[in-house]
């Protein structure tokens, strides 16, 4: 059975379900109690589970992320909210030097079943310190998984998987998608991490995106379709480990790849995917690999600048058109 839920509702359902199912799961973050987090995702949960399981923190990102790492080492299952993903940079040391390394470095008992929900997403004129994409930093980091869902159903299913995962996971939410609605299954079935999904079939060009960019890519595909170009659209869903085999299969078929990323271009997530295509599929390419990304700039605050900086259905379609032309 499915119902129509918004992305925030789907996330809340996953959190609530796991907290009911597993007493080790608890939430941690700034203003996640009464306030429900800056975007209301955890609204009502402290009433339901109490302040011991919905733990509000002072503004000490390094400290409370590190505390969550320590608690998870001891078998708890903290799910930390970072109000704006930009602030995760304050906790880089704890995530990269500690959480990501512990199991490899200390041995197999030192697992870190930690989820960090980092709320990202540009497009709302929140300015340069409240809009930047941080996922590539973690995709580059061995020992951490990175997930970035695009739909309510995926948000729920992947978050369930992330919470059950014995390893640290950065779960990238895009606040622009929070109100977006979609069908969400009622059950508690996890969607396995590490699997991309083809969300539109096509034969002429493969467009790959994740999070909000999937929707832009789909819109671009619709536009292209009216021009006789059938784009296949792939949602990466998990960024690390990256399901490049899934992408490769498609690219080998279409011979063309458009890779879309909301964050800055250089060394971004799509740089890796482009590199893998260059390693594994060049013989199948009918044109250059094409990235459509934010340019290498901080995210400007003004709406006109911000919109100009962001990849859009228009710029994606344009890139695909050029490639197929």
């Amino acid at each position, binding site marked *: 059975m499915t119902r129509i839920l918004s992305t925030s509702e789907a996330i809340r359902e996953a959190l609530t379900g796991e907290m009911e199912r597993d007493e080790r799961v608890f939430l941690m973050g*700034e*203003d996640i*109690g*009464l*306030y429900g987090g*800056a975007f209301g995702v955890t609204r009502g949960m402290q009433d339901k589970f109490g302040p011991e399981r919905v733990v*509000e923190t*002072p*503004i*000490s*990102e*390094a*400290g409370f992320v590190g505390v969550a790492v320590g608690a998870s080492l001891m078998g708890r299952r903290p799910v930390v909210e970072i109000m704006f993903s*930009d*602030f995760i940079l*304050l906790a880089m040391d704890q995530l990269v030097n500690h959480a990501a390394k512990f199991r490899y470095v200390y041995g197999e008992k030192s697992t870190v079943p930690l989820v960090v929900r980092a709320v990202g997403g540009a497009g*709302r*004129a*929140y*300015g*340069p*310190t*409240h809009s930047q994409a941080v996922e590539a930093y973690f995709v580059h980091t061995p020992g951490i998984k990175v997930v970035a869902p695009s739909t309510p159903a995926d948000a729920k299913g992947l978050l369930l998987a992330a919470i059950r995962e014995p390893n640290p996971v950065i779960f990238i939410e895009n606040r622009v998608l929070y109100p977006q609605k979609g069908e969400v299954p009622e059950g508690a079935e996890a969607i396995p991490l590490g699997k991309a999904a083809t969300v539109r079939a096509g034969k002429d060009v493969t467009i790959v995106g994740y999070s909000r960019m999937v929707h832009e890519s789909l819109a671009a595909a619709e536009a292209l379709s009216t021009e006789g170009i059938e784009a296949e659209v792939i949602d990466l869903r998990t960024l690390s480990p990256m399901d490049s085999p899934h992408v490769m299969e498609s690219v080998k078929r279409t011979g063309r790849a458009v890779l879309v990323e909301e964050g800055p271009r250089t060394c971004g997530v799509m740089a890796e995917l482009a590199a893998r295509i260059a390693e594994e599929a060049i013989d199948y390419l009918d044109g250059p690999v094409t990235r459509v990304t934010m*340019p*290498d*700039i*901080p995210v*400007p*605050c*003004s*709406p*006109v*600048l911000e919109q*100009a*900086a962001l990849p859009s259905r228009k710029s994606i379609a344009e890139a695909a058109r050029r490639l197929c032309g």
Partner: protein
Amino acid sequence: MNLDADRLKKLYHDMLLIRRFEERLSDLFLKGEVAGTCHLCIGQEAVPVGVASVLRDGDWMNGTHRGHGHFLAKGGDPRLMMAEIFGRETGYAKGRGGSQHMACFDVGFLGSNGITGGGLPIATGAALALKQRKIPNVVVGMMGDGAANQGVFHECLNLAAIWKLPVVYVCENNLYAMSTPFQESCAVSKLSDRVRGFGLGVETVDGNDVLAVAEAAGRAVEWARSGGGPAFLECMTYRFCGHSRSDQCLYRTRDEETAWKARCPIELLRGVLLDKRAATESELDAIAETAAKEVKEAEDFARSSPLADVARLTEGVFE
């Protein structure tokens, strides 16, 4: 009319300018005429105005995310600020920074900052620069009570103390960090008690009394200026408005709000001015009108300015 009266009237004007500026902004955001979010300091105006009033030419200040008041008090041009918030090419940062990120070196404003506590090392570093250049100026690092829980704040306290830097940390303790009550995020009753242990001179003061703020800030600034090292000033105050646009203030009581609003810093100073006969009602009303006019001009300026120039989107990352 004596100098003192002039000074008081300037304080009154400066607080009112901030108040009017932000009241207008509040409208504009609610109406959706301005995009994004912003943090208003309505109710807290006495802190930046009181502190700025004891600074000299060549002194610096930085601002927080709740930084319009800091910038205006330090001499920011309301027109360029409004233009920035409107995302115009004429704004302080050509629309790139928006409400939380504006700087103007010409008036000694290092910049407001969207990262809670993030501006404190910047302020501390600016003080190091002054000390290296042997310039008898000081830097004021503004912060909230929430920022006091950031690790880097404590690193700065220690660095400033061991290097005896001319920096004054001014904390606007408005009892909440977003929805988090100060008392739940800090195990001691005063931040100044925590900071004392780092070796700074500290003081806690009524942050709604602009004269008390100015006096204490004067002491702290002179201490720093004269080579005594850093100081910490905790100003107890209250934001009358929500944390940001969408806040309904469920985490505090209407009674608490009412009690604080009864101690409006602007009304308090108005009372003093009238009591002391330093100004007449009509003089004060005229000041209020001036402030309103400045805000109106600022808005007109912003509205009549061109939008940020998309053709220059990628310019300016590097010099």
